[in-house]
């Protein structure tokens, strides 16, 4: 690692967990047993929730879910590397990171149902939660828009002499958006304390990375902006932590932004609306199943002797119970009140929204079925 200063871009892929299963001590972030167990638990919990939500969608009980299957190391590791004072600007695939940062599970599940307790008042699709208290951004669907916002946020922090860093998530496909360009450019010019975390999961819905860019790597795109790039094995949670920590520290020291390319793979469909068999060969997926980030990390913990079979059983049972309980509660919670439709458009509703609210309340109700 020391041979790779974060001021240039390298092609090598940073790894901690070597093929023989042993960790590379030069890169290992050196987590305590407690931290290792916490991190692993968060990854498993994320997977358990993901599986449950896909089932719910199949049963027609929620409308949509966009999951993180296979990407848990990239998502959880990066969030784990943040300090409490730092901020995350998510894309749509990082609910696991939000939960780790403090989004209450019940609130997340409320968002999946868009009920009255949903923090965004049932206004957005599932997985478009918000949680300011967790220093976590608000999610929107348009690709890339969070990037320049993360730059502006981090820039503001620096201007206010606050050493908070903003980490922003996005996918390989998102690097083609206008937003990647302008955000990286502003971050380079103004040396904002921003960490660009690119989940290179191989696909943007049905479009493979070769169709996304002719650049040799995603990390290499940093060169165009004077922002150093680094590639990391995105299925090696310890490597992700190590690399992200260095980027966060560098940013906090006032040395500017870093672009991290985490190489991972979208094992599932793009979302519950997508059937990947339409456009990719199952054979392509198989090797990635073997590189499963959770299995890999568990083997490591097993070797270290800090995780047992019974730990695993307890964790899974507990995670499953928690999510089922949250679902039961959320499903019973009423939808948001009609009035909420007109709140928060502005700080105070102007005359036209007051009139429209009255019009809606006075009128007949919509047929309830979709």
């Amino acid at each position, binding site marked *: 690692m020391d041979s790779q200063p974060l001021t240039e871009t390298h092609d090598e892929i940073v790894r901690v967990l070597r093929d023989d299963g042993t960790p590379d001590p030069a890169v290992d972030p050196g987590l305590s047993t407690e931290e290792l167990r916490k991190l692993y638990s968060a990854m498993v919990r994320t997977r358990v929730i993901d599986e449950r939500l896909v089932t719910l969608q199949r049963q027609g009980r929620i*409308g*949509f879910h966009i999951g993180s299957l296979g990407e848990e190391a990239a998502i959880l590791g990066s969030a784990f590397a943040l300090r409490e004072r730092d901020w995350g600007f998510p894309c749509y695939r990082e609910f696991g990171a939000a939960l780790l940062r403090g989004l209450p599970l019940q609130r997340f599940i409320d968002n999946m149902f*868009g*009920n009255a307790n949903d923090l965004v008042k*049932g*206004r*957005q*699709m599932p997985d*478009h939660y918000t949680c300011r208290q967790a220093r976590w951004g608000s999610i*929107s*669907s*348009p*690709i890339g828009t969070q990037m320049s916002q993360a730059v502006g946020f981090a820039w503001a922090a620096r201007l206010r002499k606050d050493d908070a860093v903003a980490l922003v998530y996005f996918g390989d*496909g*998102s690097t*083609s*958006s*206008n937003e990647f360009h302008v955000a990286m450019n502003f971050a380079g010019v103004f040396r904002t304390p921003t960490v660009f975390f690119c989940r290179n999961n191989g696909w*943007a*819905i*049905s*479009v493979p990375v070769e*169709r*996304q*860019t002719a650049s040799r790597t995603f990390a290499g795109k940093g060169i165009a902006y004077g922002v150093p790039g680094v590639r990391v094995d995105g299925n090696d949670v310890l490597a992700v932590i190590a690399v992200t920590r260095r980027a966060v520290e560098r940013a906090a020291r006032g040395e500017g932004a870093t672009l991290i390319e985490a190489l991972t793979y979208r094992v599932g469909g793009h979302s519950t*609306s*997508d059937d990947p068999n*339409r*456009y990719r060969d199952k054979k392509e997926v198989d090797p990635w199943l073997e590189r499963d980030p959770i299995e890999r990390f568990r083997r490591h913990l097993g070797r270290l002797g800090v995780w047992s079979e019974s730990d695993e059983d307890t964790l899974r049972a507990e995670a499953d119970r928690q999510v089922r309980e949250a679902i039961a509660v959320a499903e019973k919670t009423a*939808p*948001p009140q*009609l009035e*909420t*439709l*007109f709140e928060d*458009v502005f700080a105070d509703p102007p005359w*036209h*929204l007051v009139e*429209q609210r009255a019009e*809606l309340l006075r*009128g*007949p*109700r*919509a*047929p*309830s079925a*979709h």
Partner: protein
Amino acid sequence: MPQMNMVQAINDALRVAMKKDDRIVVLGEDVGKVGGVFRVTAGLYDEFGDDRVIDTPLSEGGIVGAAIGMALYGMVPVPEIQFADFIWPAYDQIVSELAKYRYRSGGEYPCKMVIRTPVGGGIRGGHYHSQHPEAHFIHVAGLKVVCPSNPYDAKGMLLAALADPDPVLYFEPKRIYRAAKGDVPEGEYTVPLESASVAREGRDVTVIAYGAMLYEALDAAERAAQEGVDCEVIDLRTLWPVDIRAIEASVEKTGRLVVVHEAPRTCGFGAELVSLVVERVFFHLQAPPRRVTGFDTPFPYTLEMEYLPLSHRILPALLETARA
């Protein structure tokens, strides 16, 4: 004649046109191998190959900008924007370039293309998969904007748009992609742009609607009929340039107007329709015109059926207008 839904009819129109005119290329995100997230371009990649059905990088600006370049060369690009909600990264190219190209070049560079994009709510899409942004394009001089409501029109109007010399925004009401079914002739035929159709004749109130809301207007009209109010429902089909004669003729007959659209009310297309009517047939009007529209809020998720101007909200407007 085969029965088709909207998705099939649009797909069929593309296939028919592409077979005949090899200047036509389809490009966009996920339009190729997977055939579009709504499967509107399904099968075209296999039939016409990667050079004519092109999966692009994730960039609406690049899709439309490159399509403009192709059009300047003389091809007929058919860019797809995956959801109309995602068209804004291409808005500069559409407003500053596409709409003005012919004009600003003194006629030297016409820029013909058809931009296809799904619009509208009622599919549990929330803020960003539900919007109906026609007003943003109708206000821009130089663009034609269409929105068919049934498979027959969808195919015939897409073929007409592909033959038209001007840039056309072709809005596909996604809520009825599969729900609207009907007979669709094989092969080539066109439904002329700029012609509305009378979806239901009536004497008492003129109702203007388009896209998915047409069915809500028709439903409300049926229910109004049960209360003795006889509505004429106009399906605009082409939003701009609008078929002004059809509107004038109907309002001259009924003296009353209700406009329905999904988009937020303020500065929506309904305002233009109301203004045209009051400016042109003022002295025929016997009651204030009404707009039944989406509210002036972002498009919601859970309460989307309360947001949309569905039949239950149109009906009272019809009755009140008839009785005003």
